[in-house]
């Protein structure tokens, strides 16, 4: 079972994140960049499948030079090798353009399964599995909370608000995973030491047979026109108890869909 896991480096969702006022793209240079948290679950699931069924796990990343840190983490966790698509022209690409780059890279790889996190914590579009499925003509099993691979078939439980859907599709397929699926392992020190010897191939747009004009901010299908910081936290809701405090409290929780 050869699995390609799509990994994205994103600004740490736990620290302050900014857009670059020069072109309204994500300010990556000054950010505390980490592997997209949701991708770690996909890596873990891919490693678990590999450990049970054999095969190889390859990491595929599109991103600047600094994205090697995210690749190294994935390799430390146990992935076997990596492909890093890096090209200055890709900066500012929209999801549609990025999916063309990923699809072209996948076209040069052999795989039974493509896995990724259900969303990236920077833009949170969650559209990549669908875009890739369309471009590659593959079935997509998105939002999985459970994955089973049997013979040539992938079965997943797709997480929904009220429960799950049981889905299956023939391989090769694209599966995206939520953070309910497993508990990603920490890289062991042996894994960290082994990672530096694992092969990382870099590809440019030219290597993938893509025209630089087809990607990047200038020809993106969507652009951020303007942005503003999150408004400061409000005062909250104050409820005066006039004998019906409990009811008001429950009404509030219900209104927020908390209960």
């Amino acid at each position, binding site marked *: 079972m050869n699995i390609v896991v799509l990994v994205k480096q994103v600004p740490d969702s736990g620290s302050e994140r900014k857009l670059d006022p020069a072109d309204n793209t994500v300010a990556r240079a000054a950010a505390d960049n980490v592997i997209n948290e949701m991708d770690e679950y996909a890596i873990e699931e891919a490693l678990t499948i590999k450990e049970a069924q054999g095969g190889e796990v390859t990491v595929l990343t599109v991103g600047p030079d600094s994205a090697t840190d995210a690749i*190294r*983490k994935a390799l*430390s966790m146990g992935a076997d090798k990596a492909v890093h698509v890096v090209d200055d022209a890709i900066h500012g690409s929209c999801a549609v353009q990025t999916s063309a780059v990923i699809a072209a890279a996948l076209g040069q790889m052999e795989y039974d399964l493509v896995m990724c996190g259900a969303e990236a914590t920077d833009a949170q579009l969650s559209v990549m599995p669908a875009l890739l499925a369309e471009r590659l003509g593959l079935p997509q099993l998105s939002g999985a909370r459970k994955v089973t691979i049997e013979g040539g078939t992938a079965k997943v439980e797709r997480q929904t608000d009220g429960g799950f859907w049981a889905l299956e599709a023939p391989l090769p397929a694209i599966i995206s995973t939520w953070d309910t699926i497993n508990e990603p392992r*920490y*890289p*062991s*020190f*042996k*894994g*960290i*030491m082994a*990672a*530096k010897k694992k092969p990382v191939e870099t590809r440019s747009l030219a290597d993938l047979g893509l025209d630089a004009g087809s990607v990047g901010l200038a020809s993106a299908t969507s652009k951020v026109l303007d942005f503003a910081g999150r408004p400061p936290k409000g005062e909250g809701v104050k409820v005066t108890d006039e004998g019906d405090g409990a009811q008001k409290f429950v009404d509030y929780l219900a209104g927020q869909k908390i209960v």
Partner: protein
Amino acid sequence: MLDYRLSDETESLRTTVREFAQEVIAPQIGEFYERDEFPTEIVRQMGELGLFGLPFPEEYGGGGGTYFDLCVALEELARVDSSMAITVEAGVSLGAMPIFRFGTEEQKREWLPRLCAGEALGAFGLTEAGGGSDAGSTRTTARLEDGHWVINGSKAFITNSGTDLTELVTVTAVTGDKPQGGKEISAIIVPSGTPGFSVGKRYSKVGWNASDTRELSFDDCRVPEENLVGQRGRGFAQFLSILDEGRIAISALSVGLAQGCVDESIKYAAEREAFGQPIGRNQAIQFMIADMEVRASTARLAYYRAAEKMLRGEPFRREASIAKLYSSEVAMDNARYATQVHGGYGFMNEFPVGRFYRDAKILEIGEGTSEVQRMLIARDLGVG
């Protein structure tokens, strides 16, 4: 050349241990500490991370890293909790290191893979109730009888000696008299569960409460003659030769605690409001935290310097003593100031700084007291 940047691998290790400490240790260690309980499952997980095998070669199941890698990991553990840091420190420096340095090939093959994996813990039984660093005061004896050592005596303050994972204790004992006079002291492996070897109950300690520290006693305890570690009569000298590097490890642990005090104080100063604003707006608080950061940073440089000399194979005894002395006092100072920043809550066990305060004092005592370090430094300078 001057370059204290960490290699990519050491930096990855540091990040991983930091995440592990924050996500796995921090949420649950307070309860273990309160209950005076050794968190076996956390220790197993630290084993899976490879922390117990860091400085040992891969052929014995180690990670193939350096002693400095171990120090960096200890610093990040102690930044969150010292009980877990000292458990790793003792497991490596006292449990596995004597066997790795002085053991026979058979002893290494038998013990190191499980010790490196953290599946088994080893302890070192040197100290006795009557004295710590004074070899002459050793009272435990081992006499050779029919191809077996017969051990009698007791040991005090032995870390990792009675956990569910403990599988051996290396014990120092008097095995005879030296030809030139004085006691001949040797080190002998005693597997856990050997008849005649009993492990006492856990001490009630001021700090490090989630770590395991016990009294051991030996009553005609018999182990095979080949359990001797290294040369007969060199038991104490061997131990002294690995003491210097242990001081760098304790220094790293102290720096971690000192840095943890900074982390917690920054967080608290931003959250806690008094007189309508966060207390961090007050210069008194700002200066305390700035001073804490200065101390932690300079103490880190001290242990980096000692480790750098050690890795280059140069003598590092003075630097190790300087690092240990300075960083343990820094840990104590920062724990005092961090508690002060927290005010009344600093005296409550629900905040980590209370734990840091209780854990700091032992750093000025263990692995050579501050007075021993000053004596060693002065002696090295040719004073007196």
